[in-house]
Structure formats: C-alpha cells, structure tokens
C-alpha cells in the first residue's frame, strides 16, 4: 500500500518537472509566477502522500504551511514586482 502512495507522489514529481518548461520559457512573468504557485500546490499533494507513505504524520504540518504560504510569493509578485494599479493612481494625481 505504501508503494502505491510513493508511486503517485513520484508521478506528481514528474508532473511538476514537466511543468518546469513553463517557467523556463513562459512568455510573460505572470506565466512563470503561476507555475511557481503550481509547484507549491503540487508540493502540498506530494507532502500529504509522503506523510501517508513514510508514516510521518508531522508532514501534514509542513503541507499546511505550504498551503498557507504558497500564494504569498504570488501576492508579493503582483503587488511589488508588477504594481500596475499604483502606477495608474500616481499618474492620475
């Protein structure tokens, strides 16, 4: 049974490694950032599967933290790296 969960988590790992292509050649920065967020989400899935496969319930806490902080980088990206809204407001004033 543990092998099953390990196999699925290996599958998810391959999945995000294929998605790496989008980071390497995404045409715009938001595309790259989205793929990073996708990494986080898939990471949560892998961690949950590993916690079952390895018999380490602590890993659920790691997954919880990933879910909590996963979108933080995206939010920072939108507000700090790509602040369109602020630029507009400044130009109006």
């Amino acid at each position: 049974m543990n092998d099953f969960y390990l196999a699925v988590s290996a599958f998810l790992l391959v999945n995000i490694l294929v998605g790496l292509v989008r980071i390497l050649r995404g045409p715009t920065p938001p595309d790259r950032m989205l793929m990073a967020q996708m990494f986080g989400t898939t990471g949560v899935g892998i961690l949950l599967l590993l916690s079952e496969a390895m018999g380490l319930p602590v890993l659920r806490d790691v997954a919880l933290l990933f879910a909590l902080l996963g979108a933080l980088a995206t939010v920072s990206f939108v507000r700090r790296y790509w602040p369109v809204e602020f630029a507009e407001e400044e130009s109006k004033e």
Partner: protein
Amino acid sequence: MTALTWIFDGLLTAAMVYLAWSLLSERDLFKAVVLFIAFGLLMALAWVRLRAPDIALAEAAISAGLSGVLLLDAVGAIRSPNPVPEDTSSDSG
C-alpha cells in the same frame, strides 16, 4: 528501500542539481528568482525524504514565505516600473 524510493530520490536529486545550475547561470533576474522558489520547494521535499520534517518546516517557511517575497521585492525595486507587457503599449483601463 524499494525500487520506487530509488526512482523518487533519483528524480528529486537530478531535478535539484539541474535547477540549481540553471538558476545560477540565468541572466534574467526574475526568472532566477522564480527558479529559486521552485528550488526551495524541492529542497523541502529532500529534507522530508531525509526524515527531517522540522528542517523541512523551516525550509518551507523561509524559502516559500520569506526569501521568495524578499527577492521578488528586491527585483521589483531594481527594475523600472511597469515592466511586464512588452508587446502591448500602455493601453490600460
């Protein structure tokens, strides 16, 4: 140690080495930051595989939460404002 764990660990290690190399040799700073966030996630998974969930927890908080945000902020401060759309003029609204 079944064959599956070997496959999983091998994939993880190879991906981390590749990711580390490509993020160090990357000229585009933003791309390097996104790659670094992805690398942090794989690093956390590696700590998990080494049965060190506490370090994985710290890694998740630091790489996904702290460094990602700080580095994105820094890159945003370095670059000129409104950098994203290259193929479209400032046709907002």
